[in-house]
């Protein structure tokens, strides 16, 4: 199954993915309209700096954009008392109509990938973009200016990680 990964060598921590994600999950799907109408919710992925100070140096100042890993089996699905959180073709999806906001899933997700905001909000792999292809398939991937975000299987991502990145990217960081 296709999932989203972030190449830490390319991520510059610009948070374009966060904004794109928040905008994608508004009725208008337009940054300006959604800000004007107050539609903007929390992003479902977050850019995170690795570790406290001593580590940041040790790991080399890594930032990374993280979201739901679509675990299998998924602890959030086990925990859900309504059946709202469920698996669908390998993806972990929340049916927000069913969700009662009990936050059992929030407690259970080891990756902090669920935001409790009336309903359980998490990466839903952009269902409204199902007909798009390539980098436009996912809002965050499309928005990433350094192509750090990658959609595919982990095996495919590993091949990306195995390739050296061009000197230009090193400079960007």
């Amino acid at each position, binding site marked *: 199954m296709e999932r989203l990964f972030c190449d*830490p060598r390319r991520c510059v921590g610009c948070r374009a993915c966060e904004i794109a994600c928040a905008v994608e999950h508004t009725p208008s799907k337009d940054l300006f309209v959604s800000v004007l109408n107050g539609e903007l919710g929390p992003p479902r992925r977050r850019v*995170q700096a690795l*570790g406290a100070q001593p580590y940041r140096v040790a790991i080399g100042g890594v930032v990374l954009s*993280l979201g739901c890993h679509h675990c299998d089996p998924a602890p959030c699905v*086990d925990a859900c008392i309504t059946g709202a959180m469920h698996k669908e073709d390998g993806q972990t999806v929340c049916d927000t109509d069913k969700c*009662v906001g009990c936050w059992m899933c*929030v407690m259970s997700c*080891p*990756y902090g990938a669920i935001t409790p905001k009336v309903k359980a909000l998490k990466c839903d792999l952009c269902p409204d973009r199902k007909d798009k292809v390539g980098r436009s398939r996912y809002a965050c991937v499309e928005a990433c200016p350094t192509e750090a975000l990658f959609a595919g299987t982990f095996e495919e991502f590993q091949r990306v990680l195995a390739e050296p990145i061009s000197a230009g990217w090193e400079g960007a960081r």
Partner: protein
Amino acid sequence: MKPRYVIIGASAAGSSAAETLRRHDPNAQITVVSDEKITYSKPLLSYYLAGKLGEEQLFFRSPDFYERYGIEKIHARAVGLRPEKSTVELSNGQKLHYDKLLLATGAAPRFPKVEGIQRDGVFGLRKLEDAQGILARLPKTKRAVVLGGGLVGLKAAAALKERGVAVTVLIDSPHALSQMLDESSARIFEKIFEQNGVAIRTRAKPVAVLGTKEKIEGVQLASGEVFPCDVIVVGKGVDPSVELLEGTRIRRDYGVLVDDYLRTSVENIYAAGDVAQARDVLRGEPWINALWPCAVEQGRVAALNMLEKKAAYRGSMRMNSVQFFGVPVISAGLAVLTPGPLGGRPGEHDETLESRPAPGIYRKIFLKDDTIVGFVLVGDVPIEAAGVLRILMERRVNVASIKEELLELGPDLGRLLPLIVENKERFVEREFQELVHTVGV
């Protein structure tokens, strides 16, 4: 010949097991026996009681789940078990042969031994029919008494309050939610209940339910004080439903004892959910953590072992998430509990971190030897961090290097990645391994 799997109980554990069996064995003969007609979510009963959800919204699996998965469902009670013959007898006279049997019979409310407790108008809150019974009485109910200040008792109290009933909660212990919160955290919630018009009385020991056979009139305390009421809800914990073990050699303690493969002491018989006493990662001894997520996971793990796909159960731990009158709280770990018969143990922690940056926001973390052993998070902002704190606690990671940040920690796995990299042998899940690999490049 196709193996025959029989599951007793069709709730969280039973349905999860049935689904797993079918997923892995399209040809297996699977029979689920339940004395309840439909499979619904018990934790949603308080939402139903409050009028927030209708009966048709209580399903956590589609109503045609069993048909769709080709699972035979029998509406009857299992009344006898003969392991030497591999048979189960049902209340409808049927006798089922099994190759593998799963006990997923859950638990039932514990009623205090109080005079008059069997009177009409006294309810538990465990089954749909309990909630329906309470609702049927509502038109004639002005006042209610809830016996017990645990999770279910308080959920019932809040639900009845939302229905416009005057509610008093009588609690034996010194504070409410004693199986979920420490005293100072519990006081926050006692206050929230009082502010919302629910009276809470702690150290209140009921001795009698007053009234006639048909109509209850009130609850009397040891002190002689009487609380008049029209309905009583008992929320004083549950006991595992182990009746089927009667006359068998299946080992039990409080619940059915199971090993790390969720096998009972008798061949081909497994147990999962609220009835099963399985590994507890924090206690280091078998325990029942009567929780929905544990029941679902145990159901799946038991099924994998019934299929002979050796799957070890990692173990459960106490944790819970609830909301009362819109205020969310998540608590986990043993250190939170006051030492005593309810399961708290002395010496569980040697340090506590606490912050209350604004009204309605509260965070408390318990440590022992720089390892998280419990936490309480109150309010929208702090609870986001529950998942990452919980995994650090479950995997017993030394958090000395991020101790200063713990009280401010958001849902930031990134913050923890160095700890995960350092302890990668404890984070065996595919997703963690992928992350470790990714940051390692």
